[in-house]
């Protein structure tokens, strides 16, 4: 090959650059097209639709400015002031659900992760096994829960056995326990995913920290609370963010146990179920888009607040 760079060679380098760029654009053409069409454009379009009167039969019936947002502000089915739980309002039902399910699934996920991480044998087996519920579909899990939590079901039989007489509580059929039952169900299914995140972080803690603790004769319990738990701070943050976002989107289970109506007595009317009812049930696209925008803003600002509270998740020990 020629050592001296000839003008021709310089030109071919330039061509090569152009070729590489063109190939790059060709490779990302379809993925970016999909992201643009079904993610980025809809984000703008949602705000546009929310500023219009837009129904299923009428189509776009004109610009109404912030009218839809004003209606949402006064919508007692969506939210009410002061906040009351068990009041059949979509937003407070959702917050109440998140408030219960997030700590529960984090605690369960962490417990399982710590147990699996301390096993001497069959760690991989148990890791896979405990992840199992997280793998199954929400619809199948909900059907199973409807069976196990029905008034003659396995759970009541178990409780009856413990307390010594028949116990026949319809967990999903009673408005005072329907949403709480979904909490239990989802804390259980989601904990597998939380376990994986915690396990990944547990394994990243260097063993010399534990060696130092053992030399100082710190007990197991103390070692966990004084060393492991604080060192997992980045994982706590990550898992909390993921859990909160997931909890606010609760829909499938509420839809299936109530047949889409949010019952009994509005107790499982979640924010996304309300969005579904407005959009698909009532063909009110303008108002549905408004509910969607409101949910987006709530999820987005909660993520920011969490980030401010916990600080940015930095890795490093």
């Amino acid at each position: 090959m020629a050592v001296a760079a000839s003008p021709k060679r310089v030109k071919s380098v330039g061509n090569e650059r152009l070729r590489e760029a063109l190939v790059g654009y060709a490779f990302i053409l379809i993925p970016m097209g999909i992201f643009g069409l079904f993610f980025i454009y809809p984000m703008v379009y949602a705000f546009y639709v929310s500023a219009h009167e837009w129904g299923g039969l009428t189509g776009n019936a004109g610009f109404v400015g912030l009218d839809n947002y004003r209606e949402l502000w006064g919508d007692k089915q969506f939210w009410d002031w002061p906040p009351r739980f068990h009041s059949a309002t979509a937003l407070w039902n959702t917050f109440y659900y998140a408030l219960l399910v997030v700590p529960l699934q984090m605690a369960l996920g962490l417990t399982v992760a710590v147990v699996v991480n301390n096993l001497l044998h069959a760690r991989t087996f148990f890791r896979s096994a405990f992840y199992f519920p997280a793998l199954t579909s929400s619809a199948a899990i909900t059907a199973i829960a409807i069976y196990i939590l029905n008034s003659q079901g396995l759970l009541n039989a178990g409780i009856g056995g413990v307390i010594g007489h028949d116990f026949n509580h319809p967990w999903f059929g009673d408005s005072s326990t329907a949403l709480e039952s979904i909490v239990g169900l989802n804390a259980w299914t989601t904990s597998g995913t939380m376990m994986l995140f915690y396990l990944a972080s547990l394994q990243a803690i260097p063993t010399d920290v534990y060696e130092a603790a053992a030399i100082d004769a710190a007990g197991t319990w103390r070692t966990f609370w004084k060393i492991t738990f604080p060192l997992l701070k980045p994982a706590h943050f990550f898992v909390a963010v993921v859990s909160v976002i997931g909890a606010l989107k609760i829909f499938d289970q509420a839809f299936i146990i109530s047949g889409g109506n949010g019952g009994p007595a509005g107790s499982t009317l979640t924010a996304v179920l309300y969005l579904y009812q407005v959009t698909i049930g009532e063909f009110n696209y303008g108002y549905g888009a408004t509910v969607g925008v409101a949910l987006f803003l709530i999820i987005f600002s909660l993520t920011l607040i969490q980030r401010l509270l916990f600080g940015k998740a930095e890795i490093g020990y």
Partner: protein
Amino acid sequence: MATRGSDEIPPPHLAGVGELAAGEQPAIGTAVPDVPGRRRAEVIRRVVLYSVLVALALLYFVPFFYTVLTSLKTEAEGLQGFKLFPDNPSLHAYRELFSNDSLPFATFFRNSLFLAGTIAVLEVIFCSLGGYAFARLRFPGREVLFMLVLATLMIPDQLRLVPVFLMLTDFPVTHWNLTQTFRGYILINIVTAANLFLMRQYFLTIPKDYEEAAKLDGAGYFKTYWRIMLPLAVPALAAVAILAFQGIWNDFFWALIILGLGDSSHLTVQLALSQFVGFYQGNWPALMAAATLAIAPVVVVYVFFQRYFVAGITSAGVKG
């Protein structure tokens, strides 16, 4: 660490991709050095540990175990209150599911398999193409576009519901109505940012030497991608295929919006289940047979490829 959008939630670390690359389970280091005089404490610790393990195992498995057992009972047996084992295990409930003409389970199962299989293949193709371009090819605007891809992870499905539904009802320019069609459902699921990200991270772990060698041999960009890089990225491709299959097989929200509003010919297994809850009220064995079949394909995939699942989930964040 590689560039990353400031709004995106960073995974705790990228052990997942590392695990895929290593091809083996990472060793889990928890060994506590043996200190004399602590044997008794260690024994107590073990007893507590294994008691908790047994309790957790019961909590995690009994519901599934019970589901399968119930699916083998007769309808009358299912109503006898608490009863673990069927007297005469039979496949009666499964036959009932498949012989129901108004809610034909075989059709739903085929629909779900078709959608999950097709989308898994498409996601492998387009996430690997995009992931490779963002990892290796240099072109103006690459970083900005990649930020845009990651930013889509922050857009909740709920915000997209109305716009995407309206677009599918009356598709821009062509005016197609893509609701109640598999085309529409497949179209919005061709790529996901999480899987594209996973592919990009994996390609970044492959040494550049391979591509340089290919270039010296005169291979073009596409040939390098197709013949050199894809074979090296098989573990990540498997992870993407499996995550996509599972995600679509289990999907409820978008399936309901796009396929669930017309007649039952386009229902998926999961949508059918939500109707079975009402239809098979009191017929627990039939409902549990449906639940078992709705879980089975993912379990089969999981049993054979669980390493890819775990790695994919811990590296690319959460799906669904």
